[in-house]
Every structure is written in structure tokens, then in C-alpha cells.
């Protein structure tokens, strides 16, 4: 049985598909939501999907470089969250709302 085999034998494919789905969820969130903070959460989701594929490749190709990359991605994601939330707080203080549209007003 083809189906059962793919159910019981979890391989690289499964992880890659899962990571794609996570990425797609994040992408949908970025495109569809208006709240800046939810958009940033969706970006984190996309980064997590990518991280998952890095780690999956790292295991199935027996190379540790993938994990190093994930380390770096995590750091950068956290840095992005810190700066992004600082911006969101600045926006919120001014407009009492965190709609993405208000970012248009952020100039000089």
C-alpha cells in the first residue's frame, strides 16, 4: 500500500511538505492581516518553516551547516521581532491602533 507506507515511513518529504505548509500559513497571514503585530508573528511563522527545512536537510544529508544556519536565522528573527515591536509601540503611542496602514505615515 503506497499510502500506508508514506504514513509509517516518515522521511525528508514529510518534513519538507510540513515546512512548506508552515511557510504558506505565514505568507497568508502577512498578506491578509492588518494588525502589524500579527503580521510580524506571521513572519516568524515563515522563518520557522524555513528553519524546519534547514534542519531536515541537515539530518538527511548529514551536514551540520544547516543547523548553524538555523542558529543564525533564529538570532536574526529575534532581532527583527525586537526592532519591529519597538516600531509597533511607537506607532501605537501615536495612533492608539496598530493597523499596517499607519506605517505610511512614518517619515521624516
Amino acid at each position: 500500500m503506497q499510502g500506508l507506507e508514506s504514513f509509517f515511513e516518515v522521511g525528508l518529504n514529510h518534513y519538507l511538505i510540513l515546512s512548506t505548509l508552515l511557510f504558506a500559513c505565514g505568507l497568508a497571514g502577512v498578506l491578509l492581516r492588518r494588525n502589524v503585530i500579527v503580521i510580524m508573528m506571521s513572519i516568524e511563522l515563515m522563518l520557522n518553516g524555513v528553519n524546519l527545512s534547514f534542519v531536515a536537510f541537515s539530518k538527511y544529508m548529514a551536514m551540520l551547516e544547516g543547523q548553524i544556519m538555523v542558529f543564525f536565522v533564529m538570532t536574526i528573527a529575534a532581532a527583527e521581532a525586537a526592532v519591529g515591536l519597538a516600531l509597533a509601540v511607537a506607532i501605537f503611542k501615536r495612533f492608539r491602533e496598530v493597523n499596517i496602514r499607519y506605517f505610511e505615515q512614518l517619515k521624516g
Partner: protein
Amino acid sequence: MASESFLFWLVALLTMAGALMTVTLTNPIFCALSLAVTMVGVSALFVTLDAYFLAGVQLIVYAGAVMVLFVMVLMLFDLKHEVKAFTRGIFSGALKIATVGLTAGLVSGAIFATMRVSPPTGEPHLAPANDLTAALGQLLYSQYVFGFEALGVLLLVVAVGAVALARSKGGTHAGS
């Protein structure tokens, strides 16, 4: 191994449920909490992939720090249920969903096609777990030491920048 694949499906289900709820729920606090569930799920997936140390880091950094920050900021804002959580326009919305579906479909198709042509041969094993973390450290502090130092500088810049941004009075024009 049936039990291992069962665990995989369980965790995958948990992770996907968290991800979908993050995108669809209208209360941002619930979004953040479901994203935290996803983070924990991804950490468990890292464990199934033998990336033990990264799983721990995922828990500490994402689930324990970044998501706590998100939840804290949302509480600070005290945002109630959002009436307009999604962007306007049925047509553009449908277009966006189609884009997302197309992307996901394309990538999945590419994965299937590639795997049919050249499936991963066997299952190469890395070093045993404890050595794996050590090997990760050895690689990080020898070959990638420059990237590591650069990240240190990046974090410094972010620390300074985020504090400067957060302490600004808010608003875009002086005196407003």
C-alpha cells in the same frame, strides 16, 4: 518505526493547528498563544530530527523569549477583539489566497518531483547526540566564527536601536 512516525504525525498536527489558528483567529492574544504552541511543536520536530540543542534553543529563544515579548506587548496595547482583522476587498483577498495556494502547491510539487528523480539514499547518521551538540559548537566557533562575531555586532546594534525607538516619544513629527 511506527511509534516514531506516530509521534511525527501528532506533532505535525499540533504545529499545523497552531499555525492555522495564528493566521485565522481575530483576537491577537490568541494568535500569539497559538503561535507559541507552533513554536513548541517545531521544537519537538527538531528533536525528531536529532537537532537536540536547537530544540532547546527554540524553546528558550522563541517560545520563552520572543513570544513572551509579543504577548506582553499585546497586553500593553490592550487590543480588544478586532472587528477588521483582515484586509478589505473580496477580490484582492481571493487573489491573495490564490497566490498563497499557488506558492504552496508549486513548492510541494517541486519537492515531489525532485524526490521522485533523486530520493534521499538511505538515512545517513550523524554523530551520537551529545557529540552532535559539541560538533555543532566546533563548527560554529571555527569555520563560522566570523558570522558569530558579526551576529554579536548585530545584536548590539539592535539593542541600541530598539531602546532608542521604544523610548522615543511616539509620533512622526516633533512636538506633535
